[in-house]
């Protein structure tokens, strides 16, 4: 480019000649040059702006396009991933304490239909009904010939059924892979496991969500892919659970009970080894909740955890233990249990209107005297009694890891008067679940520490705060042992295992209030074994049992719950690895005699 000089000599000379100011020419030229420079800078800036705009457009376009493809495409595992461990997306298994499977997953298929792709909808409907008799042909025909473009036919297919559907040869019938939850042991531990169902469903997969029990309680953890399929280890033992349920079912039938529950718990760790509630159900095919009648009559109802009952005389040991703990009495202190005894205008009577007269504290437990424990409760006072029962966990629902545990909230008296104090001392007026009772007895059995029942396998003892001294726990255990050897639970003796326990017979309160049934009872036997070195507590509860082998029907726990519990201990103690021991009696003194 040729640069125009600011003062072109020819024009300057010409201007000088004409007498004009040559500076005007310079100014003029300078102006033109500045204009040119400005135009140039402007076009350059415009070019740059355009460039920038194009670049931004491209950048955002790429981001947008990528987001679009990510949103619209099917998810896919990264191919060049270096971690090796691929994602395990299936729900974690649930296993028992020995690693035996309680719940696992199975691959199966769901069946759906695209009616618009069907060749012969009518025949298809006919054939499908032949395979699945529960489908209605009428309905299928209507759906297949109607306007619908998509419909589910069945959520789960067995491999045989899938083959049969395949054999129809209809292109409008399609299969979607499904992961389904399988409980291979059927009804064993059904109340703990609960059940699972499908959540959000798509053609290619469906969410499996827990609907009850531990499946629901640990739903998020079980579904967490970060677990990498590590199974959830429970404290239950499958063999013992199955044996427990078997014995309990037999006992329930023999004793004509309408329901039964049992809890077997390790006294040091709080691990629940077996927990059963009858009637039960198959979690693979979980029944629907009852829409009418009492929820407690449904097989879904967990009597061991949700059922709160007045557990009767089994509570007496807590009263005596507290009286011993406070130093009010000694096991041999004699208390007058003769009547009449009136508290708050209410007469306290004994079972069968007996009168035991003066009894030692130990004998009050052995003979199960209501008035005896009532007098102890009066001496303890209601505030201290509440504190003690609360420290044993009788005021809160149990912390068991199933969703139903929240529902087992104990029923407490609204106002804890003297009368409540006395009735609660022998187990009336306070309703709690068998699991609560198991936790309470565990505290006595393990030497006075509170334990919290758990369903998860523990590595070692989990003792909570101390609730009674070791001496009191030992004395209470001796009393429980005496109940079996010489008291109300004489059927509880199992050769080789020194069983201690306390019976409880409570009248069932009427559902609509207004007193108690005369001929409906809840029988409970709370036992500890072996008493010389307690390891387990076993609670057996029978709902409305009646023993009819005698001349008149018997409804006391000693005749119903105790034999069932004894048979259970005989069956499960060897499975627990407990060696039977011949009880060694202390020989007082051997006297050499000779004639």
């Amino acid at each position: 480019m040729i640069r125009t000089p600011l003062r072109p000599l020819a024009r300057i000379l010409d201007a000088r000649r004409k007498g004009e100011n040559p500076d005007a020419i310079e100014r003029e030229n300078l102006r033109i040059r500045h204009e040119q420079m400005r135009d140039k800078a402007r076009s350059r800036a415009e070019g740059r702006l355009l460039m920038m705009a194009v670049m931004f457009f491209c950048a955002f376009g790429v981001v947008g396009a990528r987001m679009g493809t990510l949103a619209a495409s099917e998810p896919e595992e990264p191919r060049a991933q270096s971690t090796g461990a691929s994602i395990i997306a299936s729900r974690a298994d649930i296993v028992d304490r020995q690693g035996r499977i309680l719940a696992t997953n199975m691959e199966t298929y769901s069946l759906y239909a695209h009616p618009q792709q069907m060749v012969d909808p009518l025949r298809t409907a006919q054939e499908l009904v032949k395979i699945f008799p529960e489908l209605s042909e009428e309905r299928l025909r209507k759906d297949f010939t109607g306007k619908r473009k998509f419909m589910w036919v069945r959520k789960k297919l067995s491999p045989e059924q899938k083959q049969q559907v395949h054999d129809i040869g209809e292109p409008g019938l399609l299969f979607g892979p499904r992961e389904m939850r399988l409980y291979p042991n059927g009804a064993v531990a059904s109340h703990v496991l609960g059940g699972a169902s499908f959540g959000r469903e798509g053609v290619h997969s469906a969410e499996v969500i827990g609907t009850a029990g531990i499946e629901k309680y640990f739903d998020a953890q079980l579904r967490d892919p970060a677990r990498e399929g590590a199974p959830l280890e429970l404290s239950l033992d499958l063999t013992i659970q199955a044996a427990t349920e078997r014995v309990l079912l037999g006992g329930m039938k023999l004793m004509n009970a309408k329901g039964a529950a049992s809890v077997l718990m390790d006294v040091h760790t709080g691990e629940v080894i077996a927990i059963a509630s009858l009637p039960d159900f198959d979690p693979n095919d979980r029944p629907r909740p009852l829409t009418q009648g009492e929820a407690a009559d449904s097989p879904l109802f967990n009597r061991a955890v949700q059922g709160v009952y007045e557990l009767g005389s089994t509570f007496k040991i807590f009263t005596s233990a507290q009286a011993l703990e406070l130093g009010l009495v000694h096991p041999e202190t004699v208390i007058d249990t003769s009547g009449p005894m009136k508290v708050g205008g209410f007469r306290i009577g004994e079972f069968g209107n007996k009168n035991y007269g003066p009894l030692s504290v130990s004998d009050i437990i052995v003979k199960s005297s209501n008035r005896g424990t009532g007098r102890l409760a009066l001496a303890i006072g209601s505030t201290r009694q509440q504190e003690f029962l609360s420290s044993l966990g009788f005021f809160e629902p149990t912390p068991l890891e199933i969703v139903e545990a929240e529902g087992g909230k104990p029923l407490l008296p609204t106002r804890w008067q003297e009368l409540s104090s006395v009735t609660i001392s022998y187990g009336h007026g306070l309703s709690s679940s068998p699991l609560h009772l198991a936790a309470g007895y565990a505290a006595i059995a393990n030497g006075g520490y509170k334990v919290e029942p758990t369903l998860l396998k523990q590595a070692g003892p989990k003792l909570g705060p101390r609730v009674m001294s070791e001496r009191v726990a030992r004395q209470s255990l001796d009393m429980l042992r005496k109940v079996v050897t010489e008291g109300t639970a004489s059927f509880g003796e199992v050769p080789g295992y020194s069983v201690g326990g306390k019976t409880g017979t409570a009248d069932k309160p009427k559902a609509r209030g207004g007193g108690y049934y005369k001929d409906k009872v809840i029988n409970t036997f709370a036992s500890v074994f072996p008493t010389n070195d307690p390891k387990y507590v076993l609670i057996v509860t029978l709902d409305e049992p009646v023993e009819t082998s005698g001349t008149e029907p018997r409804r006391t726990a000693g005749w119903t719950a105790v034999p069932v519990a004894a048979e259970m201990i005989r069956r499960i103690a060897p499975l627990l690895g407990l060696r039977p021991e011949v009880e060694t009696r202390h020989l007082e003194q051997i006297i050499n005699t000779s004639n």
Partner: protein
Amino acid sequence: MRSLLYVLTFLTVIGAAFWAYHENYKTQAALGEAQTVRANIADARARLSVLKAEWAYLNRPDRLRDLAEVNFERLGLMPLEPDQFGRVDQIAYPRPPELPITDPIELSSAGAEEQEP
């Protein structure tokens, strides 16, 4: 000198391109192989879970109990009872094997008279 440099650069570019081409194909092949292996692992895992489920199903306590009852005559299986516990010293150990006879003596009772009692 300059042209030699150009030729060398050109050759290097060709060589690098060839190498990159090969590496690309090798990577693709490795990725494909990894995918196959991963698919196999997934299949094996699925099979394993089915087998585990089946094992658990076949070993369910109800079935084992029924089988033990059905085959009672043959197997005589009973539930574990307390009296089946024993002590180690109650177990009869197998007798030690008799020492080999190294120097046998021929004996015969042929011709011996039967003794009257």
